[in-house]
């Protein structure tokens, strides 16, 4: 069953007199358990795609079905609930709350879950998610006491905590060095392998996109190519591939 179905989605932004066509008719189907890398240069429309896929924005035209349900025309609050329950976000800038411990950061999505969750249950689930990311011993650290990789893994734990069917990663390695980038990507691969979570990765770096099972190239608001990929990420050949990428 498809997790994501986009049917000729268009997105037009009005900037004063001018209209900007960010997406010019995109159709895409992503099945459960896929690791799809969406790649494209800036201005290609990949960010707009990401916002629509993440239910942060609504298409101007066309339909978006998430887990078979049309979410194109839902209300703000209904979209908020879908984001909370079905989608886990991993951002480029980590977006952890400052002066807040790792475990409290992971708890944030649970604060907005309905029905309201007990504090000790929130804490339990957050600790479990942190443990899954190998960060049990960092639970009480503040973001500024963690390395970039650790921060991003806290962010992944936060994306996982509500057990979503889809994780959207928007340039997750943009602020990380190469070695840490590989760690984070491998963590995502592991999630897919162990839990069958569908992962959509937005990036402009081909060697990061190469961690996916399928690569969708976007340019000027349309899909240029959509090809399956043998994911890289075996620990031993990673340095070689990166060295080649420069």
């Amino acid at each position: 069953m498809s997790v994501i179905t986009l049917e000729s989605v268009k997105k037009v932004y009005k900037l004063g007199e001018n209209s900007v066509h960010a997406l010019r008719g995109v159709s895409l189907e992503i099945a459960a358990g896929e690791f799809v890398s969406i790649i494209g240069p800036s201005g290609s429309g990949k960010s707009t795609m990401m916002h629509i896929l993440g239910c942060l924005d609504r298409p101007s035209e066309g339909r978006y079905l998430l887990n078979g349900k049309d979410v194109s025309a839902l209300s703000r609050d209904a979209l908020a609930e879908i984001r909370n329950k079905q989608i886990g976000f991993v951002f480029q800038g980590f977006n952890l709350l400052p002066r807040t411990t790792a475990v409290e950061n992971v708890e944030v999505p649970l604060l907005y879950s309905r029905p309201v969750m007990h504090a000790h249950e929130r804490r339990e689930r957050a600790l479990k998610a942190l443990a899954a990311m190998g960060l049990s011993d960092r639970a009480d650290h503040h973001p500024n006491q963690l390395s970039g990789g650790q921060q991003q893994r806290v962010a992944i734990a936060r994306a996982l905590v509500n057990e979503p069917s889809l994780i959207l990663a928007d340039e997750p390695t943009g602020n990380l060095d190469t070695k840490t980038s590989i760690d984070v990507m491998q963590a995502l691969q592991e999630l897919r392998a162990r839990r069958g979570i569908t992962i959509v990765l937005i990036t402009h770096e081909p060697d990061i996109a190469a961690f996916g099972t399928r690569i969708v190239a976007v340019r000027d608001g349309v899909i240029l190519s959509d090809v399956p990929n043998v994911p890289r990420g075996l620990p031993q050949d990673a340095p070689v591939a990166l060295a080649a990428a420069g």
Partner: protein
Amino acid sequence: MMALKALIRNRTQAALAMLGMTVGVAALVTSLALGRGAQEALDEQLRAAGANLIQITAGNYKVKREIDTDPEGHIGHTELEPQWRPGGMSAIPATYNPAPRIGDVFAPRCRSDGMPAEIIQAHFEDDPMAIHDHPTARQRLGDASAGLGSAATLTRDDAKAIAGIAGVQHVVSGVHENVRIFVQGTQTQWFTRMHGTEAALPEIRSGWTIPHGRFLNDGEVEGAAQVMVLGRVVSDRLFGAGADPVGHTVLLWHQPFKVIGVIGSRSWATQPAAGDDQFDAIYVPVTTIDRLLNLSKLNSISVTTDSVGDTKQVAKAITDLLRRRHHITGAAQSDDFQVTTMAQQVLGKGLSPDLARAVMGNLSSVDQLTVEQLSASLSRTNWTMLALLAGVAAVSLLVGGIGVMNLLLLSVTQRTREVGLRIALGARGGDIALQFVLEAVLISVIGGLLGIVFGVAASGSLQRFFHWSAVVSPGAAALAVLVAALLGITFGVWPARRAAALDPIEALRHE
């Protein structure tokens, strides 16, 4: 919880916004305290002026009768009435010797440890227990028709019954007489006014100070002790100006009384003067007079009310009670006592008895109105002042509220990214708005509580250092917190709505 954590994360700004609220609430609390203090001070002043005093006198001078021919002797013992005065006696026997009669008739009533009668130098003018050419003590004191120059129709039981009326503050029984007193062992003497009274009298006469010793206490009144408090004038005349007479013995009716205190005036406006009724006077327990003169009747009962406004109702209740107790029924039967409020006495002063009688007879309620009008007009002035203070407090609270709003707007701007993140992670608009409103309320309430602390401190200092009367009531404090919380909600709503309406995409891009 979340709101509290957010505040702790932004503690400097939160503290500043809180400060605004604290100042506002402190101003509110202080102004309410000052307003209430002023109200209470005003009430106290009215009380001190005697506006809450009710005087009950034996007899009834409103009844139109000739003093000397009235068979019932219903003659009011008031300022307006001429009284029997020992000084008015004409014939003084040169060879007066009261000793046998004292021994026969009166010795059993004297204190067992009192001075032996024979060593006290008898004086014909100051012994109502002895025979004179005027009516004898027995004749003058024995029944209601001839007591102490007035119709003594009131009793101690009447006084006790009056004490049970709701709204009554103090009840003091009184027997009054003009007497001559001596310093023991000397010929130093003074002719003055004697008040048989009770321990609570200074509570009624709030204009008094006690420069030496103390006033009568309950034990002395209960035990009919032979103790005496001197008015300032009496003390000065007998012992020298400014002297401390405490411990000396003064003779009254040949009986030794120990001086235990002196009464002076608190106010420069009322200077003790010879001939006045308060400071050219002596005070002894009313029970001692009862014992020595075998009296069972009183000349007067002084009553104060808890509140100035109650005076009229209490006076009415006393009249009804006494009529019942004295078996006076029907409108035709006139009272054998008179209930006078302070206002009536003020009106009566300086008027000729006839005129006063006419005024009292015809304008029985106008005087009451006067007191109430005075009270109402003072209250209005006070309200004006309170409104002014409340206005100042309202302005400072408004400023405090705007401070809170300012902090929140700043906070929304600074935390745009956080808000965007929370929205992306599934927070609804309501969740975000609630968080900011809660923060506003939390700042306001904590600021408000601090404001109460500062307000109480400020009121206390104003009272201590500037002698302004300020009374902080729990109600005012609760009101202040409530106002702070409401302000928090009011001024928190707009920033909160702005935060809730943020576009998460834009917000997440915000640096």
